[in-house]
């Protein structure tokens, strides 16, 4: 079967080659020839991939080398042809699977003029070498002919029916929280079967963060499991954000061409070598027997051991930097006028996650006014793993003379040594010359420690500029936006208003209920009966009883109106609410006087008082 398949494949390649290039395919190559074997050391029973590449204006005729003890099986050929300004340039790659028949060191001669011979070492043993492809019938996968990364290869798990794969290449699987690890993310797409990549690879899970992926991944060709793939590689970096044994996979969305399944058994060409020929992607694309489908291909899970940063030996100024760093410092100038700023520059260089590299530099340096430093990072590679972070802090000397800028400290955790490292710069000197009188912002001594720097308005009349204020760190706020315009604070006044409104309606409801209950017990006679009673007392000349009846009626009416109990309606309450000049208040005062004195009234007085009482009773509302 293998022989038939090989013949069919060779025939197909020859037909396409003749159609495209005609007799040019038989011409001698004129250009660069490359030859490589991967891996160069395998065990007996495993296989290696020999890749022969020709770059030139013509397609060469490549024949497999003949080496005793080695079997060469052609597994694929690809060709790229470019015509620029009428000049044809082609790149032809032929891949052979090399199967050793015996152990030893084999020199494989060049298959093309100009190519270097390669050496294959075959050890005795039953297992396959790391990264090696299993011999026919074996189980290992993942051989590559053109390594696009210096990082070790991991398992290649093909998805979308073998049309594509996603894999990670990392240098280590044990790392610390916050440690940055370079990683290559590779997406392999089988030419002709993958219509398009629909986006960059994405990370699954929240245990890691990924640096920004470059927009243009590198592109190489590779044979995996005997099939040619175009491999896109993104060089980036991974950072673990939490400790534990964590698993990581990457997803890539792409569109694949799905072939229409043929009849089982193969129809007319069933069981023959032509079945392979017609199942070839190029053949199917040409004759339109495939459809497109969007799929997501995932990488094989990678397991990491993420260690927490140790508490032991952690410096007080440790800001979370993990990696390998060095620091240096200098001053922007060695001379400055009094009150003029001098910039202290600290450079942190090395490798690691520079996002975690931070420093507040100098704080409360004696004799220096310090400001918040600015930060600038210059990466030395495309992923920001190596670079230099520059901290620049303006300083102002509070005294003239030769001043010394104190040393600056920086600490980090080094995963290689597994311990915290500390570094400090050397003290720097600067000459501060006294400022001329009346210079801008320098008038008057500024003493941050004495607190006398604050200059109240008018105390230094004629001073052109007002000096700095001492900043003790108090009264700091996270945002300059006033509370009025922050949604959380804006909600508070409406809540207060709602609470007040609720209280208003609740109290009003309570008042109504209480009034209904309170009025009922002291229902008094009507106006007519009250008038009759008062007339009887007047006829008898009983002033106390006359006013007593009047008081009871008026108080009952007022108690009902005000929502009070009858004992609560005292003369003082009535006077405070209605005023002393009010007729009701005066009537009650007269009633009090009558109760405790020998008051005498004429019949005319009785009639007038009765009229007043009844009129006010009617005005207040008869109970």
């Amino acid at each position, binding site marked *: 079967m293998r022989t038939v398949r090989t013949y069919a494949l060779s025939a197909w390649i020859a037909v396409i080659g003749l159609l495209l290039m005609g007799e040019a395919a038989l011409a001698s190559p004129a250009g660069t020839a490359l030859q490589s074997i991967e891996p160069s050391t395998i065990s007996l029973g495993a296989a290696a991939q020999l890749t022969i590449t020709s770059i030139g204006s013509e397609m060469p005729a490549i024949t497999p080398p003949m080496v005793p003890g080695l079997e060469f099986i052609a597994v694929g050929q690809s060709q790229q042809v470019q015509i620029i300004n009428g000049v044809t340039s082609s790149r032809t790659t032929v891949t052979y699977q090399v199967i050793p028949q015996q152990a030893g060191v084999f020199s494989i001669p060049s298959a093309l003029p100009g190519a270097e011979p390669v050496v294959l070492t075959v050890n005795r043993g039953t297992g396959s070498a790391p990264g090696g492809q299993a011999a026919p019938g074996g189980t290992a996968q993942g051989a590559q002919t053109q390594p696009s990364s210096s990082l070790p290869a991991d398992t290649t798990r093909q998805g979308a029916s073998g049309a594509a794969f996603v894999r990670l290449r990392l240098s280590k699987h044990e790392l610390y929280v916050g440690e940055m690890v370079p990683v290559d993310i590779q997406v392999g797409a089988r030419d002709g079967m993958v219509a398009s990549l629909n986006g960059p690879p994405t990370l699954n899970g929240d245990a890691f963060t990924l640096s920004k992926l470059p927009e243009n991944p590198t592109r190489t060709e590779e044979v995996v499991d005997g099939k040619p793939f175009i491999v896109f590689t993104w060089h980036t970096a991974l950072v673990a954000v939490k400790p534990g044994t964590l698993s990581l996979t990457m997803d890539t969305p792409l569109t694949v061409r799905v072939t229409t399944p043929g009849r089982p058994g193969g129809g007319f060409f069933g069981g023959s070598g032509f079945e392979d020929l017609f199942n070839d992607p190029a053949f199917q694309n040409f004759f339109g027997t495939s459809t497109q489908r969007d799929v997501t291909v995932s990488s094989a899970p990678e397991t990491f051991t993420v260690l927490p940063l140790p508490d032991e030996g952690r410096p007080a100024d440790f800001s979370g930097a993990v990696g390998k760093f060095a620091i240096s410092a200098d001053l922007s100038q060695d001379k400055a006028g009094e009150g003029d700023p001098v910039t202290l520059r600290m450079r942190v260089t090395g490798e690691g996650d520079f996002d975690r590299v931070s420093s507040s530099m100098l704080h409360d340096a004696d004799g220096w006014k310090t*400001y918040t430093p600015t930060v600038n990072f210059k990466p030395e590679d495309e992923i920001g793993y190596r670079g230099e972070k520059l901290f620049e802090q303006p300083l102002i000397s509070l005294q003239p003379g030769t001043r010394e800028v104190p040393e600056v400290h920086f600490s980090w955790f080094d995963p290689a040594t597994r311990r915290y490292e500390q570094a400090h710069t050397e003290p720097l000197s600067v000459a501060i010359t006294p400022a001329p009188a009346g210079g801008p912002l320098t008038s008057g001594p500024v003493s941050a420690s004495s607190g006398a720097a604050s200059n109240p308005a008018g105390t230094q009349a004629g001073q052109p500029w007002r000096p700095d204020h001492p900043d003790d*760190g108090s009264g700091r706020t*996270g945002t300059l936006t006033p509370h009025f315009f922050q949604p959380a604070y804006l909600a508070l*006044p409406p809540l207060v208003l709602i609470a*007040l409104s609720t209280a208003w309606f609740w109290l009003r409801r309570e008042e109504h209920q209480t009034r209904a209950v309170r009025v009922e017990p002291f229902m008094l006679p009507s106006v007519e009966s009250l008038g009759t009673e008062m007339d009887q007392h007047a006829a008898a000349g009983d002033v106390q009883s006359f006013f007593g009846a009047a008081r009871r009626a008026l108080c009952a009416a007022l108690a009902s109106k005000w929502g009070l109990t009858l004992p609560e309606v005292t003369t003082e309450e009535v006077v405070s609410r209605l005023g002393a000049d009010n007729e009701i208040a005066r009537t009650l005062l007269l009633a009090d006087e009558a109760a405790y004195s020998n008051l005498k009234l004429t019949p005319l007085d009785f009639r007038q008082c009765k009229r007043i009482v009844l009129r006010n009773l009617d005005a207040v509302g008869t109970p």
Partner: protein
Amino acid sequence: MRITRLLGSLAALLLLAGYGADLRAQTAAPAVSPPAGGYSAAQLYNSANASARSGNTALAVLGYERARVLAPTDADLRWNLHRVRESAGLPASTGWFEEYGRFANPNTLYWIGVAGLVLGGVCVLALRFKAGHRGALLAGAVLGLAAVAASAFNAAATSIVLSESIAVRQAPASASPVAGADALFQVPAAAAVRVIDRHAGFELIRDSQGREGWVAATDLAAVIPDT
């Protein structure tokens, strides 16, 4: 009925504050991180002084204006801002409303306003539903409402700053928000402008003379950065 009118007035004040917040949201600049430890008036003022010393007038004005949000009555700050504006040939004084409306720290006045709202509301309730202490309750209600009014006045005056930006360098103001458009006028460095709208990296501004034009957002810095 009276309490209804009172609540209506308070709602109007809140709507005024809400309008300010909405204006702020409409003209919000891209978010920036506050400095480590947050802002303080002294730190902003001292940074502005440092910028003034180094001759960067625009950054100095920006720093002073930001410090003024937290300490609007600081005499040193107002003096140096006045001087640096004067040295840059810019109008040294602002409008009457902004000058006198910002008479205290807005955050302090916010809490005074809330406390006044509670005090006034409780006193009005007590006046209506409880007997006695009418004089004290009346005084409390008046005091509370005065606090609310002062707070609202300050909020209205401060709201002007929400849309204010400082030109960090001299910048052309164009008729349309596209690169290379003809300049209508030049916005001098350190000038305070009001941002009315934003579009595709440009901001529609109105200067102190009432002129309007589109300026590249990178040439402006908001007095109150959006965090």
